[in-house]
């Protein structure tokens, strides 16, 4: 039968077979082009999804200017819309304007721009391909001209606050960090916290007016045996600062000892009793004098241990700060938060280096390698 075929038919058959094989090879190579190596177990579903995605470019897309469900609001901005006005309308709080700014990667709203407003917190820990969100806590002691390294001059402090303002840092009170550490609420991308230890008089005389001018909140840690002394803030001044709403007053022990060190010949019971006094007395003193309940503790010299943390927990303290340098992520232990000391001999470059807002200890590439 085959032998009887006309040459024309044979030719057609050959061409068709050739064509078919070319098409087959092209198809195979095309598929290989879209296949992504996602690891053995997920390879099939990933490539299926990819090819499925390719097939679903919608045609006749609708012309919409507003859309909303329980997760997102998508809209085209109108003239006069601001981050604050949209935050108030859709998030119910003008202070949440940063949520819109961060999600859309913008600093202000211009007309006729697509804006997405997330109604739910999708990423409370602030993780991105570049790293994990980190919150630096700055630690100051004294201000003005002083012979110790711990004194930051008025000019330098002003310059540092100006730097925070010019670079769009969000300065928040330390107590707001608690919800972030509990993974309940996210924080703006560039967040920084200011704390001042000991309660020297210069806090009231120099730092407070500057903080007021910039409208930056700060937390002042007092050790109550010192408060009211010659070089320290008075209780009246502390009250005034607290009333301003900018300065939060918290505890820094009674006598400023190194609480992690047991004295010679001190039994465990004696040690715990002493630590208890160092934690409870200032708490009561601040409550009595300022009618204010403390919830954050700054360890003198930044040193702590398990016994101290246990007592803090029992006394309903929520956060504890050390002087371990570095920034804090959402995984940082709430009773051992890091703080970066700002010294008088720091220039603005040193200062900017201490403002680490992204923990780059890992990258997306690292993760891709660990499939």
């Amino acid at each position: 039968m085959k032998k009887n075929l006309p040459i024309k038919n044979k030719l057609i058959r050959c061409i068709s077979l050739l064509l078919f094989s070319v098409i087959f090879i092209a198809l195979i190579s095309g598929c290989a082009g879209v296949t992504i190596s996602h690891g053995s177990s997920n390879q099939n579903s990933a490539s299926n999804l990819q090819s499925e995605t390719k097939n679903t470019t919608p045609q006749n897309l609708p012309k919409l200017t507003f859309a909303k469900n329980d997760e997102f609001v998508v809209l085209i901005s109108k003239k006069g819309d601001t981050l604050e006005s949209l935050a108030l309308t859709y998030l119910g709080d003008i202070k949440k304007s940063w949520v819109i700014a961060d999600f859309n990667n913008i600093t202000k709203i211009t007309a006729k721009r697509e804006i997405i407003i997330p109604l739910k917190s999708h990423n409370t820990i602030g993780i991105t391909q570049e790293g994990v969100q980190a919150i630096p806590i700055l630690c100051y002691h004294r201000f003005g001209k002083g012979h110790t390294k711990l004194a930051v001059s008025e000019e330098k402090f002003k310059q540092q606050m100006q730097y925070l303002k010019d670079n769009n840092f969000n300065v928040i009170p330390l107590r707001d960090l608690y919800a972030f550490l509990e993974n309940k609420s996210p924080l703006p991308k560039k967040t920084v916290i200011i704390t001042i230890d000991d309660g020297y008089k210069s806090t009231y005389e120099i730092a407070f007016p500057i903080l007021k001018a910039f409208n930056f909140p700060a937390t002042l840690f007092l050790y109550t045996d010192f408060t009211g002394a010659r070089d320290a803030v008075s209780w009246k001044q502390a009250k005034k600062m607290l009333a301003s709403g900018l300065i939060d007053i918290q505890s820094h022990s009674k006598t400023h000892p190194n609480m992690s060190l047991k004295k010679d010949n001190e039994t465990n019971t004696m040690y715990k009793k002493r630590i208890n006094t160092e934690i409870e007395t200032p708490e009561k003193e601040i409550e009595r004098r300022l009618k204010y309940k403390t919830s954050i503790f700054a360890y003198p010299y930044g040193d702590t241990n398990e016994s101290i943390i246990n007592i803090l927990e029992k006394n309903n303290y929520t956060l504890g700060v050390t002087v371990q340098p570095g920034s804090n992520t959402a995984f940082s232990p709430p009773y051992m938060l890091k703080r970066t000391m700002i010294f008088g001999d720091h220039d603005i470059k040193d200062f900017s280096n201490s403002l680490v807002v992204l923990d780059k200890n890992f990258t997306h590439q690292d993760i891709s390698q660990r499939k």
Partner: protein
Amino acid sequence: MKFRKREQLLIIYAALIISLNACTSIKTEPQPSSDLSLDYINIQRHIDSANIYFKAHDFYHSLIQWKILHSIQPNNTQYKNRIKVLNRLIERRIKNILKNANLALKSNNTKSAKTRFLAILMLKPNDPNAIQQLKIIEANKETKKQARKTKKYLLKRQQAQNINASKKQLNSLKPRAFKLNKQDHEQSLFYLELGLELFDKKNWRGSIREINKYLTTNPSDKKAINILITSHINLSKIFEDRGHVEPAIQHMEDAVSLEATKKSLHFQLKKCQVLRLMN
């Protein structure tokens, strides 16, 4: 005739495959988005973004884009399916990474475990298990750091005590120089300053406590020793006035031990001792 039919079928089949292939290779590359001035929501831009994120293995952000698309067109079942499939893919990946993370934890390789838990969070930022594990890892790390610091302090204190002991033992010999680093120097100055503040406030007990702390690292500061002696004397007088002879004697003894050559101190001590005999 039979062959012709077969070849015709083959050609039809080939044509079908060509058209199918053309369909699958619809352009998925990102198109330039004209988001500078828009009259309508740019749906195509979100589809492109979702695809780009997917190609970059950033499944979480791809999922977010599909969710945004779902909020724009809730009736589009394709978006719903995309979300479903992507969620399934993410969960499967998390399961695999978690297996390795737990293995790393078992072998005490916390660095590797940390990276893997972070990888889980890249896929699902609110994963409670990964967050909890990372919190434990971080807490252990910080606790170890604190313990190391305390140990260092204790060692320094021990060294200072040894120096004091040798000073007492070898009265005529000068003590071995105890070199303080900058931070310790700042701290010891802080104790002195606080001691002086408390002295000014007539808080003798507090002054004694702080000056003693300062003297552990600066044992030869005469000014501080004099402040300490005065605080002991004043406290002793207070106890004496209140009729508490024992603590009064104790403080006078402390004062004498600091300055054994001062006759007035010995006299005051004797006075207290006489009071004790009279009582």
